[in-house]
C-alpha cells in the first residue's frame, strides 16, 4: 500500500543523496519526494511517498533511521494526517474551450495563475487523488505541461515530528 514517510534530516550537504541512494541501493521505490529546510535552519523536512507491505515499510524505516543524518521519522499513514500536493498545469486554451476549462478549475478550487491568448496555467492544491481527478476531468483539453510538487503532510492534532 501507499505510505507517506516524513523525515527530519540534518540540513547538511549530501544528506539528501544518502536518502535517495538508500532507496536505489536497497531496491525500494520512491513515488514522490519533497524536501526543504524547516523553521530551524539546521533541519530539513523531507516527505516521501512509497509503496510496500508492512514488512517492506518496516525495513525502509529501519534503514532510514540507520542513516546518521536522519534525526527522526514517522510513517504518517499510521495515523490520521493532512496531506497536500501542489500542481501547476499549463493547458492549451483557445476561444471555444476557455470557459469550460475555467469552470472545471473553479469546481476543483484551482486558480488560474497565468493567462495568454492561447494558454491557461492553473494552480491546484490537494491530495494526490484530487490532483489525479482534476487531470481526468480536463477531458479533451490539451495539457501542455504538468509539474507536481509531490506530497507533503503533517499528523492531525497534537502529534508532531520535532526534536
Amino acid at each position, binding site marked *: 500500500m501507499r505510505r507517506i514517510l516524513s523525515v527530519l534530516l*540534518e540540513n547538511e*550537504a*549530501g544528506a539528501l*543523496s*544518502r536518502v535517495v*541512494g538508500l532507496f536505489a*541501493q536497497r531496491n525500494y521505490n520512491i513515488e514522490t519526494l519533497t524536501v526543504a529546510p524547516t523553521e530551524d535552519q539546521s533541519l530539513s523536512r523531507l516527505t516521501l511517498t512509497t509503496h510496500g507491505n508492512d*514488512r517492506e515499510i*518496516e*525495513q525502509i524505516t*529501519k*534503514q532510514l*533511521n*540507520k542513516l*546518521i*543524518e*536522519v*534525526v*527522526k521519522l514517522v510513517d504518517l499513514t499510521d495515523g490520521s494526517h493532512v496531506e497536500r500536493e501542489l500542481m501547476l498545469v499549463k493547458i492549451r486554451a483557445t476561444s471555444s474551450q476557455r470557459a469550460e476549462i475555467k469552470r472545471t478549475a473553479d469546481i476543483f478550487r484551482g486558480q488560474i495563475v497565468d493567462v495568454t491568448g492561447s494558454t491557461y496555467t492553473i494552480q491546484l492544491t490537494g491530495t494526490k487523488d484530487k490532483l489525479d481527478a482534476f487531470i481526468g476531468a480536463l477531458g479533451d483539453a490539451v495539457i501542455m505541461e504538468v509539474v507536481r510538487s509531490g506530497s507533503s503532510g503533517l499528523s492531525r492534532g497534537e502529534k508532531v515530528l520535532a*526534536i
Partner: protein
Amino acid sequence: MERLSGADAIIRSLQEEGVDVIFGYPGGAVLHIYDALFQQNQVRHILTRHEQAATHMADGYARSTGRPGVVLVTSGPGATNAVTGIATAYMDSIPLVVLSGQVQSHLIGTDSFQETDMVGISRPIVKHSFLLKSAEEIAPAIKKAFVIATSGRPGPVVIDIPKDITNPTDLIDFEYPDTIEIRSYNPASKGHSGQIRKAVSMIMEAERPVIYSGGGVIQGEGCELLTHLTRTLGYPITNTLMGLGAYPGTDPQFLGMLGMHGTYEANMAMHHSDLILAIGARFDDRVTNTVPLFCPTAKIVHVDVDPASISKNVTVDVPIVGEVTQVLEEMNQLVDAQIGERTEGQKNVLADWWTQIEGWRGQDCLKVIREDDDKQIKPQEAVQAAYELSGGDAYVTSDVGQHQMFAALYHPFDQPRKWINSGGLGTMGFGLPAAMGVQLAFPDEQVICITGEGSIQMNIQELSTCSQYGLPIKIINVNNQALGMVKQWQDMQYEGRHAHSYMQSLPDFVGLVEAYGHVGFRIETVDDLEPMMKKAFSLKDRLVFVDVLVDPEEHVYPMFVAPNGSMRDMWLRRGVRT
C-alpha cells in the same frame, strides 16, 4: 590555544585517538598530510603496495585487536582502489576510519587531475562519510568518525579531505574534543528487560534448543558471557562463518559452523530445533538456505544491536535490540537464578535432544577419505597440518573459496578474533594483507594466511611490504591449480564444464617469494606434508610461503542443496545427499 595547520591537525587528532599505526599510500592530494606524518613519531605509517591492501590491513588490524583500523590514501585512483576494502569492512561490520585526499576545493567538480567523487562512490558501503569544507572541521569530523565507526553496529567511515585545507601555511586554532554529541545518532545499548525475561522463559522451556551466534558477539566483546550462558544451559551451539571462536571450537557443546558449508550436525540441529537463540547473527542467505523452508518448528529469539537486522530475512518471535554484553549479562542473571529449578523431566528431554545430535555427529561429515596408495595431499589435510603444527592458537586469516571453507571447518578456533576472513563480501585478495595487519598489531604472535593460488595472486605484491617491515607470516597456499569453488559449482551445476576456472601459467611460487626475499617450500606428497610444514613453522622470524599441491578434484562438503532446499538438505559427499 594551539595553532596548527590542517595537516598537523589531522595527525594530532589521530594521536589523540590513540592511533598507533595507519596504512596508506601517498599521492598528490595527501602530500601535506604525509609531510606532517613524517615530522612525528607517534603514529607509525605502513607503506603498502596497493590501496586495496591498505584497507584490508587496517581491517585485519581492527578484527584482531577490536580497535579501529586507519587508512590514508590519495584522491582519485587512491580512493577508488580503497573501495573494495571499504566494502569488505562494511559487509562484516568492521570499524575503519579512511582518510582520503581530495583535490583542492576550488577544483572539485571540474574533472581535475585525480579527482573522483569519493563520498559519492563510497556512499552505499560506508556507515557514514564526511567531505570537509574547512580546516576547522577536521578535529570534530575525526572525533565523530571514530565514535560512529566503533559504536552501535561498527563500520567504516570515510573522511574526504580537500588538499587546500591541509595547507601547512594556513594555521587554525586546534583543540581535540573529549566527547562529541551527534543528536541524530543514538545506538541502542540496553535491551528491553521485558523482552529479555520473555526470551529467557522460552529458552528455559525449550526442548530442542540451539544457540546460533555470529560475528556480532565477537565485535561486541560478548564471548565470555556467551560461553557462560551456553555452559550453564548445557545447550548445543553453532557459529556462523563470522562467529567462529566466539565459543571454544574444541568444546563438545560446539556443533561446528552452520550454513551452506556447515556441518551436518549443526544444520540438522537448526532445522529440527524448537527454539533458536540467535545472537549477533543476521540470517544471511548462506545460513538460511530457502527462507520459507527455514527451521519450520523453531521459535526464534534474536538479539542484535542493529534493529534493521531483525526480521529482515526471517521473521522472529522475540526481537531484542541492544548491545550483546548488556543483553547477555541480563540473560545470564536470569538463567543463573532459574537453572536450579530445572526438573528431571526437562533434563531427560534435553538428554534426548543431545542423543539425537550425537547421532548426527556420528555421521562424521568432515571425515577425509583417501585411498591408501594415494600420495596426493587433500586440501583438508593441509589445513589440519597447519592447525596441528602451529600449536593451534595462531591467528588465521583466509582468502575466499574452497580453502576458506576448509579452514573454517578443519581448523577449530578456541578464542575470538583469531579467525579472520571476508565473510560478507567474499573478497579474494583479503587474506595476505589482513594477515599483515594482524602481524603488525601482534608482532610476537603466530599469524597464518590460508590461501589459494587464485586468491593470493590478487594481492601478491604485498610480499614486498612484508619484506620491508619484516613480517614473519606463514602463508599456506592450498594449490589445486583451479578456482576451486567456481570449479566445484561447475562440476555440480554445469555438468563439469570448467569455464575459465583453471589457472594456467601459474608462477613458480617458491622462486617468486624468494625474489621478494622470503622463504618458499613446495610440498607435493602427503609424506612430506608434516615434516615440511613443521620446518616452515620452525622458521620463526621469516615469512614462509608453503605451496601445497593438493588434490584438484576435492569438493567442499557438506553443501546445501539449492535451489528450494532447507537447512537439512545437504550434499554430504559427491553424489550423496540427505
